[in-house]
């Protein structure tokens, strides 16, 4: 087990290097200069050169990357071009709001997905199953931002039940419906597959009550794919946060990121990309470890 975790941790290093290099290239290879957006074009050329040197923009791009990397290892992601604040401070202020949104959505998703998936599988083709099949497909097909707009239209504009911005309820519902749909399908599929296994028949044959068969024998195994899918869906969760936070003016990291992109605020963009990547990778690692704990077979496989 220790070797497995260590092995996975080592794989993270090249992954993070690749991500940082790719995002650095994407932000820096763009035509146009960020100084053009923040500095009066009539400025004295000497002064401009000084600002560029100050931001490190006069160096070759590879050197710029190495400098960035060296500082990043010390958790210094530079200063935001727009506010002048250290990026790490800026993100630090916004991150709790994003985590609040994401974690509550995550918990709500699990609380709904597992029972719905189980009931749908056990009562296959019932009205309950059909209803949730329809809801899942609709949920997967609705653009998240449009769902947000529609909820806002109904609950804020028409019914005046909830404020359109500054309230957790609407962004939370939007995000949860978005991630719920696919996961419920997986949970149902996994449960159906497990229910067809021999050992379930054995458990039933030896007279165990149905409740024990389903929750003790079947559900534990049917949770495995759900763990993996949850890990894999993390990037989507972050992606969703960018759009949802923008619509609901939620003061989190996603909205900061979208603003930074529009303003070509390189240091902030890089900081957010790296932080999301780290959170995504750690999430996947936790999912893998959880999987290995629940299913010992994984640990003994080669690789």
């Amino acid at each position, binding site marked *: 087990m220790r070797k497995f975790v260590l092995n996975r941790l080592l794989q993270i290093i090249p*992954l993070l290097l690749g991500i940082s290099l790719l995002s650095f290239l994407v932000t820096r290879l763009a035509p146009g200069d960020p100084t053009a957006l923040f500095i009066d074009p009539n400025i004295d050329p000497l002064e401009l050169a000084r600002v560029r040197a100050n931001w490190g923009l006069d160096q070759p791009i590879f050197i710029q990357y190495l400098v960035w990397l060296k500082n990043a290892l010390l958790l210094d992601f530079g200063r935001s071009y727009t506010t002048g604040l250290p990026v790490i401070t800026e993100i630090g202020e916004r991150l709790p709001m994003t985590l609040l949104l994401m974690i509550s959505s995550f918990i709500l998703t699990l609380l709904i997905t597992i029972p719905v998936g189980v009931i749908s599988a056990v009562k296959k083709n019932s009205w309950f199953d059909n209803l949730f099949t329809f809801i899942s497909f609709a949920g997967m*097909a609705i653009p998240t*931002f449009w769902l947000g707009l529609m909820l806002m*239209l109904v609950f804020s504009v028409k019914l005046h039940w909830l404020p359109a911005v500054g309230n957790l309820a609407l962004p939370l519902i939007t995000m949860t419906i978005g991630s719920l749909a696919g996961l419920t399908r997986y949970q149902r599929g996994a449960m159906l597959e497990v229910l*067809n296994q021999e050992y379930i028949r054995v458990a039933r044959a030896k007279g165990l009550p149905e409740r024990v068969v389903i929750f003790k024998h079947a559900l534990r195994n049917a949770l495995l794919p759900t763990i993996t899918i949850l890990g894999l869906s993390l*990037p989507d969760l972050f*992606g969703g946060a960018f759009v949802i936070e923008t619509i609901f003016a939620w003061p989190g990291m996603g909205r900061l990121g979208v603003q930074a992109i529009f303003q070509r605020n390189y240091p902030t963009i890089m900081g957010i990309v790296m932080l999301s990547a780290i959170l995504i990778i750690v999430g996947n690692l936790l999912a893998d470890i959880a999987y290995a704990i629940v299913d010992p077979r994984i640990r003994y496989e080669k690789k």
Partner: protein
Amino acid sequence: MRRNKAAIFGLAIMAIFLGLAIFAPVIAPYSPDEISSAGASPPSWQHLFGTDDLGRDVLSRSLYGARISLSVGAVAVVIALLLGTLAGAVAGYYGGWVDGSIMRAVDVMFAFPSIFLILAIQAMLTPNIYNVMFVIGLTSWMGVARLVRGEFLRIRQLQYVEAARAIGCGDLRIIFRHMLPNAQGPIIVAATLGMAGAILTESALSFLGMGVQPPMSSWGNMLMDSQAYMRDAPWMSIIPGLLIMVTVLSLYFIGEGVRETLSPKERHAGS
């Protein structure tokens, strides 16, 4: 069987939408940029879907928007399929370090929230329709690559591949003539789901103002326009969203139908 009905329903809807998009200039009651009423007016017999804030006919704009949204989806998914199939086939066929490095690249791409990467690239380029297609394609090939690689790893061990090698077929011939046709089922499923994903991404991108640019209409940028008029002209936001949803749903149904036809096992276990 139930799911196949859904697939046929999906195909029918897609065929209708495709027809409407192609014949938009004939069907549309107004030109998409024509100002045909003073300000936003609700749906009526003159304007079945109402008009937008500038007085342009929403039905006509939706029809022209269908052309843009569907073609962005189709071209983006073709790019993703080409890249993904190539990467997956090479990785799965050659294995070893080739496989290792391609799959690490896939891991790197997968660890990004893709909408963020797309937004960042779009902000650097001039956001126009060709860049949208290209960038969505470039950032959505990884799933296909993993899928094709998996298929190739499986097929590589089959006897007919060995036979092909024994009679002296070259690598390229084995990959493209012998192995790829046998991996096409999952690729078709990935194509329909990928097109659905590309249409959703385009709409999100255009909604944020980083996709298809006005005056060209796409379902996504119609939604962007609608945001300021939700109280007074809700039809402006309801209609394009419904169109996106129905399109994506149809593509999902088609994909599920194909998947089910391909793997009879899942039909029994699945649903």
